[in-house]
């Protein structure tokens, strides 16, 4: 028997597989396809203090082994979430974390305070790295000073698991990772999308209404893996890896590079059951490699 559970500090996941924010709705969208209790956790849609209409259509463009999105954090706001969505999803037999975005530090703090009151939400993922929103968002993710402030102030009010989601659009991700660690983040998740762009050569126009958008999918995996590896070596808090994970081997690679858990994002769109398949695959892999627990994989990359 393989022990698949992993700890992100005090937060226990029954297995290392979570689903990534913005790619898994509120979990409900996947109930027809899978049993949510089979995965370690889900991160629900990006939530902001006030409702957001999101960006104009078109919001997506396909690229080589990936896609660009420019959803722009469309959501009905944290109060709507608390009243209307939380009651529907609070009994999911898995960890439900809320992904929180904001334009000001105050936004983040307020949203965190409101979500803290929800008994069955064991943590939040602070999204300081959305490339699709003008006001703030990514600004916090690429400047150590801004990041420091937002983590510090949220930490001051939020006592449950505080996961910080890092942006890959930076020169040195370890600087931001260490800042978040110093300010008391419980774990780091990465990567968010890479800022990209697509053009229709015939129409001579951008494919996205916002011109640029966030790149995800298998194309970003090499960059994500490198950043997870760099971050793992730079901090002591657990790292949650993502970026193009589509199958068990991908998930194992992120864990070897230092991830304690992983998130599956865009791949859910192509195979809505893939997160369960990966959780099962990790168990199988551990068995084949004689590992007693999945957590032994974390950082086990051999360099000799």
């Amino acid at each position, binding site marked *: 028997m393989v022990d698949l559970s992993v700890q992100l500090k005090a937060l226990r996941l029954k297995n290392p597989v979570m689903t990534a924010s913005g790619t898994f709705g509120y979990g409900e969208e996947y109930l027809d396809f899978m049993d949510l209790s089979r995965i370690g956790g889900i991160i629900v849609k990006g939530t902001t203090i006030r409702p957001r209409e999101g960006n104009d259509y078109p919001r997506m463009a396909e690229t080589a082994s990936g*896609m660009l999105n420019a959803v722009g954090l469309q959501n009905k706001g944290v109060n709507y979430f608390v009243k209307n969505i939380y009651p529907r999803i609070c009994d999911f037999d898995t960890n439900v974390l809320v992904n929180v975005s904001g334009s000001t530090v105050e936004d983040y703090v307020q949203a965190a305070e409101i979500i803290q009151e929800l008994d069955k939400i064991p943590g939040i993922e602070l999204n300081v790295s959305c490339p699709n929103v003008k006001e703030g968002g990514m600004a916090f993710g690429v400047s150590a000073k801004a990041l420091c402030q937002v983590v510090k102030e949220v930490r001051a009010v939020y006592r449950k698991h505080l996961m910080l989601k890092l942006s890959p659009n930076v020169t040195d991700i370890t600087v931001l990772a260490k800042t978040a660690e110093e300010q008391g983040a419980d774990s780091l998740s990465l990567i968010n999308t890479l800022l990209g762009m697509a053009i229709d050569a015939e129409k001579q126009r951008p494919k996205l209404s916002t011109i640029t958008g966030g790149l995800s999918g298998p194309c970003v995996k090499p960059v994500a893996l490198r950043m997870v590896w760099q971050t793992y070596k730079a901090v002591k808090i657990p790292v949650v890896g993502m970026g193009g994970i589509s199958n068990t081997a991908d998930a194992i690679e992120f864990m070897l590079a230092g991830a304690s858990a992983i998130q599956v994002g865009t791949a859910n769109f192509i195979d809505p059951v893939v997160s369960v398949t990966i959780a099962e695959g990790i168990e199988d892999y551990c068995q084949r490699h004689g590992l007693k627990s999945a957590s032994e994989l974390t950082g086990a990359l051999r360099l000799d």
Partner: protein
Amino acid sequence: MSSIANKLVLDFILYEKEEWPNSALMKFKTTEILPEIFPGQFVQVKVEDSPETYLRRPLSVNFIDRGNSCLWLLVQKVGPGTRKLAALALDSKVNMILPLGNSFSLPEPKKESGIQNIVLIGGGIGTAPLLFLGKSLRELGYLPNFLLGGRSAADILQLEEFRLYGKVFITTQDGTLGEQGLVTEHSILNEIQVDRIYCCGPKPMMQAVASLAKKINCWCEVSLENLMACGFGACLCCVEKTNKGHVCTCTEGPVFNINELLW
């Protein structure tokens, strides 16, 4: 909108194919029992082994035969995904997620007094969902009027099938079949009192139909083809701006009453 069955991920086998220069009618079978599917719903098809098609491709259900677990897709070859799909050999396996989306609103079974003349307007590949819809309307006692438009005769597909379920009217821009012109210019629209319009086709054509419908004060539903990533409400990429704000065309659509749209 009808009550919708659970979504499934199913493997199908291609058992029959009819190909034209720019399109193909692909008939699939599955060994499973097909869920209930309504006209206007679509499937998300995985195009295997195509480096350019990472995402699935949304395609309308053209026809189903639930008894035999058969499902037809009518595919226009516009890019790598649809070309690759249309080129599949018989017996190829194809994975689909279905049923997706809402569906056309079906009227009550026909009565003497109620709705009489229903016109189904399809432009180009937009005729795909109208065959299934026409059959359903026929089963409700209506004799649908299919108004099919295209650039030229080669764009008008499945004529025989349409004739099984209703009357067919055609426009082509080059006049090679039916009346010359656009669908909105077809004489039938002046000749009968149109009670209801269902429409699917390129956006400019649907917008023209919608303004015609508004002018003649006619109930009208259109089926949108917004770009989709997931097809089942998870990504929020496929939105259309409506009077309720941004709504997902893959769950609250693809079918909309024109009154909901900001056209």
